[in-house]
């Protein structure tokens, strides 16, 4: 997709959704980063993408579940192709497969790309953020110092909730928080809890 077309599409999305975009405690930075947020709607990834500044947006790719998106379904295939989504398995039985998957995601980021990830693994009702799956932790572990940016999406489930086909133009908000990194001796569960808390803090305002 050419940058001009992408800019127009992103602008239209922001207007239609009335999205307020805020950066709290940090500034946009085009370095390789993982944007991770709460998940309530199919529009989440689109909104984060549209809310990012143009130079980051150009190299940002959403991460999507293969079992849901990689099906013989025209609309889904088209979206996956347009968004250059990175398809992953939600559950990996063996460690080797999980490592290969982590490598594949890091390779997809390259030197200056970013990933948009929803660590809950599935869409919730908007009432609360469910515990995170471990993919975010493995990314940070494999690439020490990788910057992770919490994103809170407010009211997106009202635009297009799970199971609905037609979106409605209710105003929503996208809030980017301060970047975080995996501590040198931080374990998986405390890290994932801290990441989830970072998103939840943004929800509080």
């Amino acid at each position: 997709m050419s940058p001009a077309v992408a800019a127009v599409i992103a602008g239209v999305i922001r207007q239609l959704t009335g999205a307020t975009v805020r950066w709290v405690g940090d500034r946009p930075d085009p370095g390789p980063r993982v944007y991770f947020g709460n998940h309530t709607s199919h529009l989440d990834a689109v909104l984060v993408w549209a809310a990012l500044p143009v130079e980051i947006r150009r190299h940002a790719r959403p991460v999507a579940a293969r079992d849901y998106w990689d099906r013989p379904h025209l609309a889904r295939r088209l979206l996956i192709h347009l968004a250059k989504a990175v398809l992953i398995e939600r559950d990996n039985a063996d460690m080797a497969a999980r490592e290969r998957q982590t490598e594949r995601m890091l390779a997809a980021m390259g030197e200056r790309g970013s990933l948009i990830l929803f660590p809950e693994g599935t869409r919730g009702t908007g009432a609360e953020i469910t515990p995170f799956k471990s993919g975010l932790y493995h990314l940070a572990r494999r690439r020490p110092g990788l910057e992770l940016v919490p994103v809170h999406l407010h009211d997106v489930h009202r635009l297009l909730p799970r199971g609905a086909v037609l979106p409605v133009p209710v105003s929503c908000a996208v809030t980017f928080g301060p970047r975080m990194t995996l501590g040198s001796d931080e374990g998986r569960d405390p890290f994932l809890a801290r990441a989830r808390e970072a998103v939840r803090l943004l929800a509080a305002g």
Partner: protein
Amino acid sequence: MDRELATIVVGTAGVLIVATGVGLVLDRTVASSETRAVVDNMNARLRGWWVMCLTFLASMLTGGAGSVALFALISALALREFVTLTPTLRADHGALCWVFWGFLPLQYGLVAVGALDLLTTAIPVGAVLVLGLQSATAGDTTRFLERTADLLWGLLVCVYAVSHVPALLDLRIAGYEGQNLKLIVFFVVVVQGSDVLQYVAGKCAGRTAIAPTISPGKTWEGFLGGIIGATLIGTGLWWATPFAPWEAAALSLMLTLLGFAGGLVMSAVKRDRGVKDYGTLIRGHGGVLDRIDSICFAAPVFFHVTRWLVAR
């Protein structure tokens, strides 16, 4: 352009230019921090008025279609603000789809084709049934009546009421054919003029609060200044309308009072939502509904009284 319409456009532009000049002078001379805030607010409002007046003028230049489109857009934005502040549930999604993709386009479609009887009944009759049925079949009866009533009220105020402004184009007035755009201009100038004059009079002389629990900014002095001033303006514009001077005066007085009532009621809604602590994160396109709150209540009444008075 119609000669009378051109006169009003030039007059409005003159008022805006003078006000902008005054704003510039005040901006240079004011020193104390208290008045500084007032002047900054006034100049910000003035910039808004320039944008709004030019948008309104552009819609006028395209004739009727542009006006219908502009008010459809205003309705859509107002409805979005209203719904965003309304605590809907998952089960309301179907009803919301009906509101945004069904009744909003339907209403303005009826205005565009001039189906007078249908445009005045589609929402009060149709939406009550459809929204109720849609919400009932969605299966969740939590706060059922409240949720349905919220959506219906939003639809009535933001879409149905506002659509009566461009619906003025559909009235057939003997001896006034092809000039109905001026009815819209008369209506908007009187109602919005009343808002502006209330603000100015309130800022200059406002002391006694008129409804402190609902809208602390509104004062008796501002109320009287706005009502009297805008009624005089409306009366002075009788030559652009199909009304006799005394009719224009009575209608202007009615419009300013209804406009004030609309502002008061919409403030009460905001207060109610504010208490529910819902909109702290969403700043959005804040304020379309604030700007048109006076139009919401005045438009349907003006439409029907005008129809009764001159379009029989």
